[in-house]
């Protein structure tokens, strides 16, 4: 049995906003639950209210159009992203990244938005969405604000999201549709494991960007590079944004070495 909390399951966005405002600071949002139930199980958190957002239709689904790009609703789980035809056609990097998360059991349940809100430095969706220049839409009773994902993460497990806000969708710009891409994730074992280093690079005719995970307090992204940038330029741009540490899983030097190695391996795949 977990510690006591009230389970609330609003059916609309407005109902959710009201609950979040009323219980600000005393509630946590429940979507896939693959992180939050672990936190509850281990008594790391003790929210008075757990607000399940899966019944809210407005937060469901993946849509694509030529002007805005891809919209990923807050309750979209990894397997939905992997199987979505627009994602497969226009943003295959996202399907690739989502397929590298956890295990099948977790991919069937874990949400993309939740992966961002947990804000682990090794978030698998972080580096791919950063490379694609994604933004997140935060909603609350006070209104809606859209912020670039690169500004969303503020530290390990920390984001810009306020206690009364919800990450309601992720937006991937239309100009990144059809981007060439490559991704690598270094793990200790072949199966279910978190990244020691992950690198995703996306390239269109106008821009090239690399997102890196597990090499800084948050997932990070390079500045916008020219699509013709040489591999040495990409490596130096990556080195400007990473600051890996020694920890139980890997050393700083090994992480830096593998980051460079991954950029070199991905680079030929971008042309």
């Amino acid at each position: 049995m977990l510690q006591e909390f009230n389970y609330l399951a609003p059916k609309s966005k407005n109902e959710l906003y009201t609950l979040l405002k009323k219980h600000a600071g005393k509630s946590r949002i429940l979507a896939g639950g693959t992180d939050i139930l672990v936190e509850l199980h281990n008594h790391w958190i003790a929210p008075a209210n757990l607000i399940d957002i899966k019944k809210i239709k407005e937060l469901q689904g993946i849509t694509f159009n030529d002007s805005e790009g891809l919209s990923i609703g807050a309750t979209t789980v990894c397997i939905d992203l992997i199987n979505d035809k627009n994602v497969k056609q226009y943003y295959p990097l996202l399907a690739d990244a989502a397929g590298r998360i956890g295990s099948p059991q977790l991919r069937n349940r874990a949400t993309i938005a939740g992966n961002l809100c947990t804000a682990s430095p090794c978030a698998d969706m972080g580096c791919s969405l950063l490379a694609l220049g994604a933004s997140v839409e935060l909603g609350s009773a006070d209104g809606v604000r859209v912020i670039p994902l690169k500004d969303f993460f503020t530290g390990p497990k920390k984001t810009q999201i306020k206690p009364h806000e919800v990450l309601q969708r992720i937006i991937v710009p239309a100009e990144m549709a059809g981007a060439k891409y490559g991704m690598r994730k270094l793990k200790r074992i072949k199966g279910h494991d978190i990244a020691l280093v992950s690198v995703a690079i996306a390239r269109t005719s106008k821009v090239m960007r690399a997102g890196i995970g597990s090499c800084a307090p948050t997932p990070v992204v390079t500045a916008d590079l020219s699509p013709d940038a040489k591999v040495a330029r990409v490596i130096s741009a990556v080195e400007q944004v990473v600051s890996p540490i020694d920890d139980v899983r890997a050393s700083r030097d090994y992480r830096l070495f593998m980051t460079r190695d991954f950029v070199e391996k991905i680079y030929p795949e971008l042309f």
Partner: protein
Amino acid sequence: MKIKLTVNGKKYERNASETKNLLHFLREDIGLTGTKEGCGAGECGACTVVMNGKTVNSCLILAVETDGCEIQTIEGEAKDGKLSKLQQAFHKNHAVQCGFCTPGMIMSARALLQANAKPSVEQIKEAIEGNFCRCTGYQQIIEAVQDASGQLKKKEGLTRA
């Protein structure tokens, strides 16, 4: 909170505690203790059940979230006292040693076979990557799933009893 769900084809209506996960709900409220708790944190897969056709860690889902859902557990495998083909294949291929991971392992294999009647070895490995087994070394489990899908070639050399 009152919830209605279907477990192994049978409908249940129960008053579920909001703070109880599906795993404990199945074991304590429904009385189906085949599903095991390993880590309780979504790492080991011992608690795997199939929910609406997809494998999930039942330790990471609240019982109240499963209102209206269809759940399959290990107890749904055997019919009239006869093991399912998949269970028989696990038995025959020595894919069970201590047995603790087996209910979850079989549910992952079950969901795979429901979606793909003839999975490749790579697909089998991917399907069970969220299920830890500390005894078998996995090879026998992979062979059992191949056998259950009619794909296991007779082995030369060492024969198994």
